């Protein structure tokens, strides 16, 4: 056990405080330079916006843009725990030194890591495509339940009803729980003997299930947890959308003799579209990239439960294949980007983002 006393408190406050202080000093120097260059030297009329944006631009450049460019560069090297830092070489340099391994210059030298993502196991045994299809399946299952149950609950809560506020508060609860706690608590509850899931199944006369060790069931467990976690967000967003639809539309439809389903199909769904499309894009990206749930529920490191991002984590930090992991990360990013562009094109979402 670590000691937790005044010494620890002053030391930690000192370190965090000095970091904040350094950031402030850095910002002040940056502002002075910007003011000098843009305000005094160039007499630019954009001096104020430049000074307002400067610190954020520098921060984003240093901590997001630079690491990404650096990672792109990394994806062409053989960096690993053995070849760390300066010892890492570009894959084509490795080729030049070992000409006997070259079959095709493009896939063995230039794009070696990218080719390896598709032709070698990304983990110990699991190959890319099974993991990819599992990720798609995982995303599809989750989004299906998030949307259908979320929309169902939102429709119910949008009706005239007593006690709506209480229901809403209770149903939102999973969203409020820190994901790490939720995932860890669920993992405990999937325990074979003492978890409530098997205990309840037992009371229904169903034999207990090996949630944490049987590959298929572990995947089901992951889905259950993430569906439970994700419904509130969808429900709240969709409820907001439903409440913005004017009641007159339904009255008019009722006068014209439209039944409930027709009203839903012709009024609710189209008018919900502007809210639903961004929520679906965001929800899909979040689910696709969800790390905590698959990582924690998969206590026994079953490769059959890994989705792309957890596989990426293991490739990088368990097997320490940094160059390979960088290429893997870009493959995942390109998949997501392609999906988003495709979806945005199809639905014409974000048209209103006139910026």
């Amino acid at each position, binding site marked *: 056990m670590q000691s937790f006393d005044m010494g620890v408190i002053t030391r930690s406050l000192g370190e965090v405080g000095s970091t904040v202080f350094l950031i402030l000093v850095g910002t002040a120097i940056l502002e002075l330079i910007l003011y000098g260059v843009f305000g005094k030297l160039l007499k630019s009329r954009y001096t104020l916006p430049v000074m307002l944006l400067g610190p954020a631009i520098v921060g984003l450049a240093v*901590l997001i843009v630079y690491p990404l460019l650096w990672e792109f560069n990394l994806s062409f090297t053989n960096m690993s725990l053995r070849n760390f830092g300066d010892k890492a070489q570009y894959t084509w340099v490795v080729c030049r030194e070992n000409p006997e391994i070259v079959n095709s210059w493009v896939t063995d030298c230039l794009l070696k890591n990218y080719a390896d993502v598709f032709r070698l196991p990304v983990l110990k045994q699991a190959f890319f495509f099974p993991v990819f299809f599992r990720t798609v399946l995982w995303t599809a299952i989750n989004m299906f339940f998030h949307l259908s149950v979320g929309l169902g609950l939102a429709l119910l809560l949008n009706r005239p009803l007593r006690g709506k506020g209480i229901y809403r508060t209770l149903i939102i609860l999973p969203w409020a729980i820190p994901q790490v706690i939720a995932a860890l608590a669920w993992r405990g*509850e999937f325990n074979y003997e003492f978890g409530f899931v098997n205990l309840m199944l037992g009371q229904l006369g169903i034999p207990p299930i090996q949630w944490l060790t049987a590959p298929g069931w572990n995947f089901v467990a992951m889905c259950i947890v993430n569906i*439970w976690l994700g419904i509130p967000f969808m429900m709240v967003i969709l409820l907001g959308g439903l409440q913005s639809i004017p009641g007159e539309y339904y009255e008019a439809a009722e006068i014209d003799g439209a039944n409930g389903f027709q009203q839903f199909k012709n009024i609710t769904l189209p008018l919900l579209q502007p809210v639903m499309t961004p929520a679906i894009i965001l929800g899909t990206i979040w689910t696709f990239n969800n790390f905590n749930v698959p990582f924690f529920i998969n206590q026994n490191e079953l490769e059959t439960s890994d989705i792309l991002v957890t596989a990426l984590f293991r490739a990088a930090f368990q097997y320490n294949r940094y160059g390979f992991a960088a290429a893997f990360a870009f493959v995942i*990013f390109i998949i997501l980007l392609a999906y988003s562009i495709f979806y945005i094109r199809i639905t014409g979402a974000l048209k209103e983002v006139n910026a």
Partner: protein
Amino acid sequence: MSTTSSSQTSTQAVADKKPDSVLTRFFYAQRGDSPFKRLLIHLTLILASIIAVYPVLRVMTISLRPGDRLLSTSLAIIPEDASFDNYIKVLTDTDFLLWVWNSFIITAATSVIGVILASTSAYAFSRSRFPGRIAGLIFLLSTQMIPAAMLMVPLFILAVQANLIGTYRGLVLAYSVTSIPFSIWILKGYYDTIPYDLEQAAMLDGATQMGAFYRIILPLTTPALAIVFLFNFMAAWNDYLLARIFLSNATEIWTWPLGLQLLQGQFTTAWGQFAAASMLVMIPVVILFLYSSKYLISGLTAGGVKG
């Protein structure tokens, strides 16, 4: 409005325009659904509420179990011999307080920095038309597509080379920046709803644009600033991935997610302590979240829909 109610009440209901006013709610409840259907709706919602709440209640149940009965197959919500043993144990026998303290100072520092940086940048995006503005906004949006897992490889290696692994400094820097794009997006949407006339009037009276921003716009933006602060706070407070990568061996500066994983890992011995620690972390977060959820949603949609 209700077609069955008298014209007088319906005009009244239209007049005050609050969909949840007592009058409208009363008349709404009279309309439409048959009692049987209403019963079905209530049953569905009750079932949904139970499914949402039960797993959380179980954490409480386990946290209240006395040490020798941790592994029980009972499904009772309040154990018969409930005790606070686990809470006392987790506070005295583990590093829980240290973990929470570490999380707290890192999170507090980063949320303040994040909000300051985002609030000024968002103001520039909202009020001035500088070249590259649209490209900047699109860039901010596209950073949301980058998986967190993608940044961890380069951040880790760069942090190793900069000797930032196992320090508060590395995490503070990383957290401060990662939530800026989203914060700018939200705040810009909010600033856009504030008329420019307000600043112009102030500037006519001799204030500089920054003075007008500081004295007039910022106070009006308080709700959105609060939301953004809450968002940054939650993102850093609940983060596991970066903390794990940056602090893996430095147990003296572990944040609570790392500590809780350790406790849950020792399933048989420390499940009760894990549950107690979870309750202690969770309760303030949940209260804060439920309290602010109304503003949270309006703040989100204001930023998202307005663009």
